[in-house]
């Protein structure tokens, strides 16, 4: 009898989702889907709001990613004002984004994913979490806590609070970096660098034992997209967009973010509130592409800081060139943490950072603005259309996690086909399916804003119409 297995909820991710796996009569996986079961709706209820409120409003999409929305929204506002923000304001925004990437990646690795690596995919689910990790590896757990805290403190030093800082605004930023904060941030760098180097070393030593997962967890060809600098360097705040393929060939380059609709389309599927962006020239769904740490390391030519560039070379050696396995997101995240630590240190040496010239004032000079930046999980687009008074007429948000939707679905199906043979499904196998999603570090609260076609409701129905077995997690 055909079966449908439901994993609900998916654990150790941000947000709410479920996975359904369909088995045929022989217990073989025929299909698997990743469903996002929450709907946020910011694209609709922001209509009519003043554009200058949007950073504060959209920052509340998520408690982990507020800075990402703050910055992309402020950049969209910069375009509506038609201003070039002061150099110090850009440098401070960049510093905050580096802190954001650092703290978010630390959360993903140490809190959400490390339990699988360090305790084992088949370990007791009751302890396969941050609590189990801290009991088994207290020193690593403590270091991870303090590393994340460092990133959060950078955000708090600049924006006044760690979550939802009301700091970046259209035209610039609200406040400068104090001398005291500058010194406190600098004082934390040696410890942060030591922690990430130690963690990278540990992870690389573990990799030989994780090659099976690397081979199966979302290992398939796709395009990759991310921001790069004028010389192809790793970027996180500005620059232009680049697409590369699985062989590392540059498919499209020097794409302007504000013209994203020319090369990115958005599809809606009935089984999820998550939109499915795709690369227009290849159509849907062939135009699947991935964003985020894996993509950023694939599209850039170099990072531009010595230790991170060294680790980038090691990352590429391990992947034999362009990394196509989504499992390698974890490794990419660690390389990016190192990059942020080095770039934060370098930024602190720039005297411009202490300037009080932080804001450009202007009126409504353009009726459209597109802000693009790299959130920890990938490229983020905030697109606003306003009226002559600056009131929002239309909002489109393209979120990193949404851009990985097609790839996440394919990853779930790939892992399920490899590991699941009905009728008995060991818990560790289901955990691997979840771990495939966790590799992308999805932020589902951020990414569900389009009007969904259906309300989501779980029903278990066999091919003959009878009720199926169901697997649940608490």
């Amino acid at each position, binding site marked *: 009898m055909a079966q449908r297995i439901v994993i609900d909820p998916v654990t150790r991710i941000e947000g709410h989702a479920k996975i359904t796996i369909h088995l045929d009569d022989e217990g073989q996986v025929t299909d698997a889907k990743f469903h996002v079961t929450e709907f946020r709706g910011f694209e609709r209820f922001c209509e009519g709001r003043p554009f200058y409120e949007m950073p504060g409003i959209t920052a509340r999409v998520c*408690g982990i990613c507020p800075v990402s929305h703050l910055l992309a929204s402020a950049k969209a506002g910069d375009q509506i004002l038609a201003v070039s923000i002061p150099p110090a304001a850009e440098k401070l925004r960049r510093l905050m984004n580096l802190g954001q990437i650092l703290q978010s990646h630390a959360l993903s690795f140490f809190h959400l994913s490390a339990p699988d690596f360090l305790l084992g995919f088949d370990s007791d689910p009751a302890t396969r979490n*941050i609590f189990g990790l801290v009991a088994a590896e207290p020193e690593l757990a403590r270091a991870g*806590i303090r590393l994340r805290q460092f990133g959060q403190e950078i955000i708090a030093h600049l924006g006044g609070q760690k979550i939802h800082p009301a700091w970046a605004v259209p035209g610039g930023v609200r406040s400068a970096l104090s001398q005291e904060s500058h010194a406190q941030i600098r004082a934390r760098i040696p410890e942060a660098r030591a922690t990430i180097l130690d963690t990278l070393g540990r992870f690389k030593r573990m990799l030989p034992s994780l090659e099976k997962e690397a081979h199966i967890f979302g290992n398939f060809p796709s395009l990759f997209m991310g921001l790069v600098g004028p010389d192809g360097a790793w970027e996180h705040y500005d620059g232009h967009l680049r697409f590369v393929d699985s062989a590392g060939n540059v498919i499209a380059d020097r794409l302007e973010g504000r013209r994203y609709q020319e090369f990115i389309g958005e599809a809606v599927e009935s089984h999820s509130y998550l939109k499915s962006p795709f690369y227009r020239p290849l159509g849907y769904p062939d135009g699947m592409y991935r964003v985020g740490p894996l993509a950023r390391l694939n599209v850039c030519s170099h990072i531009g800081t010595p230790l991170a560039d060294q680790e980038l070379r090691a990352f590429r050696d391990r992947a034999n060139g362009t990394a196509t396995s989504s499992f390698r997101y974890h490794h990419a995240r660690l390389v990016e943490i190192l990059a942020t630590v080095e770039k934060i240190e370098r930024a602190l040496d720039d005297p411009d950072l202490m300037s009080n010239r932080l804001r450009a004032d202007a009126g409504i000079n353009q009726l459209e603005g597109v802000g693009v930046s790299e959130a920890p999980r990938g490229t983020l687009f905030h697109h606003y259309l306003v009226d002559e008074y600056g009131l929002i007429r239309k909002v489109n948000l393209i979120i990193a996690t949404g851009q990985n939707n097609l790839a996440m679905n394919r990853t779930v199906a790939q892992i399920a086909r490899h590991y699941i043979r009905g009728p008995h499904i060991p818990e560790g196998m289901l955990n691997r399916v979840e771990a495939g999603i966790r590799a992308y570090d999805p932020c589902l609260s951020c990414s569900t804003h389009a009007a969904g076609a259906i309300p989501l409701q779980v029903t278990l129905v066999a091919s003959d119409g009878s009720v199926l077995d169901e697997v649940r997690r608490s």
Partner: protein
Amino acid sequence: MRPRSILVIGYGNDLRGDDAAGRCAAARVAAWELPAVRVLSLHQLTPELADPLVAADRAIFLDAHPAGDDPAVRVRPITAVPRTNRFGHSSDPRTLLAFTKTAFGHSPEAWWITIPAADFALGAPLSRFTERGIADALAAIRPLLDLSVPDTQVAIDGMRSNRRDTGCPTR
């Protein structure tokens, strides 16, 4: 023994009416500017708080609870016993204490003060009912701070409930 350092953590959603009670109470403690008392005002309890907690001799957690459960301020000593194995939007300081103890080998003595909350509506200011609860909580916290804050200071804070400079939304 008199604690050398005290950490006060007020947490809750300041966009949801009386759920801000813990943060409002924390803001008022912060305004006392007491030496050796560090005050944090947060959205929720997270693992990163283990770091400042382990450095404190005493911790006081301030939060709201539905008034229907109990119309009075609750003041409870708590221990490091995990209630769940996850950190989420619903925060239990006992879990955080247990995490701190596991990570660092010890955790501070701790109290959990919760203030009765009547209205959790989105965007609502603090209700007068919860404002009175905050005043009661501040009176209860004084002996836990083990410091001589004059009664008049607490009374003044109660009278400030309608002023904007407390940082809490009021009717």
